[in-house]
């Protein structure tokens, strides 16, 4: 499986224009939010927490057509389906690589961006930690949706269907970021972790099922 992860990384790095796109979109979106509040600091810190989740989601949506559609279009997916590696494992690896290559770079600049929202440094660390544990579910939900809409090339459809599925994660994430409770195993945080684990576990199976339906 390590070997497969390595190879998938290589592919993403070679065709990685979408990573730069997501990155610049994220920065642009966040700074626009910061500017729009006209320096009203109490408004700004509340807005920042929502903005960071929203920007993250939008950046991920931008890159979703790279996650599996290219393999489907080129026909590579057919060979992955009949390979010795179960398709669920392949999909899990692909999603993990998507998360590491697209989301991690965004999380690295997040502390810098949050400072423009005048969020205190203690809170920045907490927000990044919550993003780190909450964001995998964005990638894994994205994989499910991409697989469900494989035959439909319309990205509008993809986006419209996707948004409601993201609501639980988004709401939980924003709620946790805004929570003043510093105990990181409090109920709201546990809910967020549970949500992430749940999507990581079900995503490969639902995605694989959707792909097989598409090929039958």
């Amino acid at each position, binding site marked *: 499986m390590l*070997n497969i992860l390595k190879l998938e990384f290589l592919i993403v790095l070679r065709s990685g224009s979408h990573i730069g796109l997501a990155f610049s979109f994220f920065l642009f979106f966040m700074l626009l939010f910061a500017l729009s509040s006209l320096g009203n600091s109490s408004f700004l810190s509340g807005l920042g927490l929502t903005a960071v989740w929203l920007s993250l989601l939008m950046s991920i949506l931008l890159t979703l057509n790279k996650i599996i559609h290219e393999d489907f279009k*080129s*026909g*590579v997916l*057919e060979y992955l389906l*009949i*390979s*010795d590696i179960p398709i669920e494992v392949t999909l899990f690896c692909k999603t993990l690589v998507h998360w590491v290559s697209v989301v991690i770079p965004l999380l690295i600049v997040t502390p810098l961006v949050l400072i423009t929202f005048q969020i205190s440094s203690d809170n920045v660390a907490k927000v990044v930690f919550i993003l780190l544990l909450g964001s995998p579910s964005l990638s894994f939900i994205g994989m499910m949706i991409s697989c469900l809409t494989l035959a439909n090339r319309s990205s509008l459809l993809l986006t419209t269907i996707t948004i409601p599925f993201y609501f639980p994660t988004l709401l939980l994430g924003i709620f946790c970021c805004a929570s003043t409770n510093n105990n990181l195993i409090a109920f709201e945080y546990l809910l967020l972790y549970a949500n992430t684990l749940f999507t990581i576990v079900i995503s490969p199976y639902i995605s694989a099922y959707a792909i097989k339906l598409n090929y039958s």
Partner: protein
Amino acid sequence: MIKKQISISIHSLSCAVDGKLVLEDINFSLTSGQSITITGPNGVGKTLLLHVILGFKSSFKGHILINEVDFSEDPDDRQEQIGYYGHRASLQAGLTPLEIIKYWKAYYNSDAVAMDLVKFWGLPNNTVENCSEGQRKRIGLARLSMMQRNIWLLDEPTTNLDLEGKEKFLELHASHLKSGGLSVITTHEPSQFNKNKMINLDKHRIN
């Protein structure tokens, strides 16, 4: 590579696409060392037939037996025994042939040496985008040789290949049959393949 004895039988297979019957009552059976050639004009359903056997199309009538066991309802189990070569090259953009071979080596648990395959098929060192169609086909054939499967479904394997490439393919195919494999080949150039077992889907007659 030691392969077991294998047989595949297709019984009265019919398949419709969008309500139109494309394949009707196809029958054939093969055992180790045999190959069948499927011909017919464009759009007659050659690729569809391979996709049905491969399990990429589940709405068909009829039976597919592998080693006398009915696998009609188990596309997943069928796929584990089938090596496939599609008429599209199906390669990842941005990688070199060597990297692609390493990629599929991992996915097919092959013990082949990637460098040897590159040498055998005479593959270049640049990325796939800069490869010619024939070179892409060669990469596809290298991938096929790494699938250690007894049943080969080959979709127009020799198109775009030069004379040397065709010779290498025929060599690969012959050694596959010799080691106990069998193959179903669709082609527009039937003269190179088995003429004893041949189905023309247009006339739909077994010679």
